[in-house]
């Protein structure tokens, strides 16, 4: 009985030390991998607004995909002549959306998600949420897109 419990104890203590050692030895490698991802994202958040050129460059019913910080974005001029900008990441599985001339709606080519041009609301297909909106201002004929 004594022999058996001593063996069990030794096994346990060896296991505990092995686990502690493994944890200690793996910690630097875990931090090594994770710290690079955190550093890259920090730099990307700095962009707050961007100039998209002159109003006259966009005819009503047209759009342009562009880079906003590290993320893709979409500027749309509706048929009525109003400007709208969105974070162009589909809320379904993260594809980049585009403006469809045919549908007159924002559309995702990956799984056919459709969003409203004016509100960014998800209208059809699998997207669960509306697109994240950016704010658009027109200042003396120049279009400025900034974080909402």
């Amino acid at each position: 009985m004594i022999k058996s419990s001593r063996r069990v104890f030794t096994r346990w203590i060896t296991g505990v030390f092995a686990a502690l050692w493994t944890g200690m030895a793996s910690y630097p490698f875990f931090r090594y991998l994770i710290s690079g991802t955190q550093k890259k994202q920090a730099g990307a958040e700095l962009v707050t607004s961007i100039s998209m050129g002159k109003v006259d460059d966009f005819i009503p019913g047209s759009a342009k995909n562009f880079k906003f910080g590290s993320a893709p974005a979409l500027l749309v001029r509706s048929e009525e002549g109003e400007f709208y900008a969105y974070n162009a990441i589909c809320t379904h599985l993260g594809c980049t959306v585009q403006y469809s001339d045919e549908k007159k709606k924002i559309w995702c080519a990956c799984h056919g998600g459709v969003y409203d041009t004016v509100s960014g609301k998800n209208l059809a297909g699998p997207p669960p949420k509306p697109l994240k909106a950016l704010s658009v201002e027109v200042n003396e004929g120049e279009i400025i897109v900034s974080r909402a």
Partner: protein
Amino acid sequence: MSSVDYGEKFYSWLDERVGISGLIKVAEKKEVPVHKQSMWYYMGGIAMVLLAIQGLTGILLMVYYVPEISSAHSSVLFINTQIDFGWFVRSLHSWAANILIFILFVHMFSAYFMKAYRKPREITWFSGMALLVICFAFGFTGYLLPWDEIAFFATKIGLDIAAKTPFIGATLADMLRGGSEIGQGTISRFFLIHVILLPIALVAVAGIHLLLVQLHGMSEPESFKKAKKKKYEKFVPDFLVKDFMVWLFFFNIVAAVVALFPWGLGPEADPFAPAPAGIKPEWYFLAMFQFLKLLPPHIGPFEGEILGLMFFGVLALILLVAPIVDTGKNKFISKCFDIYGILFTIGFLGFTVWGILD
């Protein structure tokens, strides 16, 4: 105890599917001789652990390293200064590489002096020599990648030495260099060789080496063969547990060395700057470097350097052919190889120390 032993349950589940107990039965039969020189049996295992460290840290370094001429140095600097434990991973890779070369020398010479290369272990010896060459190639190609001053000149000198090989040398050096000058072409080629070609070669040759060691078992030195009372211990678990303890101890020592003396990074390579004063190769090339310095530019009709390099070639060749010449049938030849080994070791150590002090 009434609790179910889950470990045993899992073992029998696995055994029914992959026949693990058959392998264990084979392993249990394996025995290791116990004698005064038993400590040398651990060297191969230590080399294996160091290679595993190289594989792991090499993969981790590739996460951030950029093999492009204007980014290579800054990406290593980024690893060293910006990434958590980046200095540790990079230092571990450099330190373990150097310690590995040292352990391989010890492993090779312990096998040499114990005459472990004799029948039936000739191919084990040849594959071991091939592994040493592969590790040298790892060292040479990896040395360039941080693209610092010393890396640049070490590669330049190394490739110029390779170019001196008769007939094929110049073409070979150009192929490795990717042109007449060291640049992006060299970095791309060395990176490819370092992370793809050499690892494949290493796994293949190390596989053969290990398989042969399992097939023949541990070599027994002459003194042990003649002994009246021979002592053996079981490989599983006795030797394996000790092996494991040695690995663990060794890994901790390496980690401590890395933490206390992190590996540095020189200024970025400038192909148009002069070589820095006091530039020296890595310690394992130092003996050759010091010896070549002694030679005059010309010896008779030959270039001194080429003769020196051919001399090193002959020295290495004698080590390589040891199993073919020293079969154990002739006592005189056996003695000659002993003396050669001693002279080689003394010469190597002497020139290395001289090179360090010089």
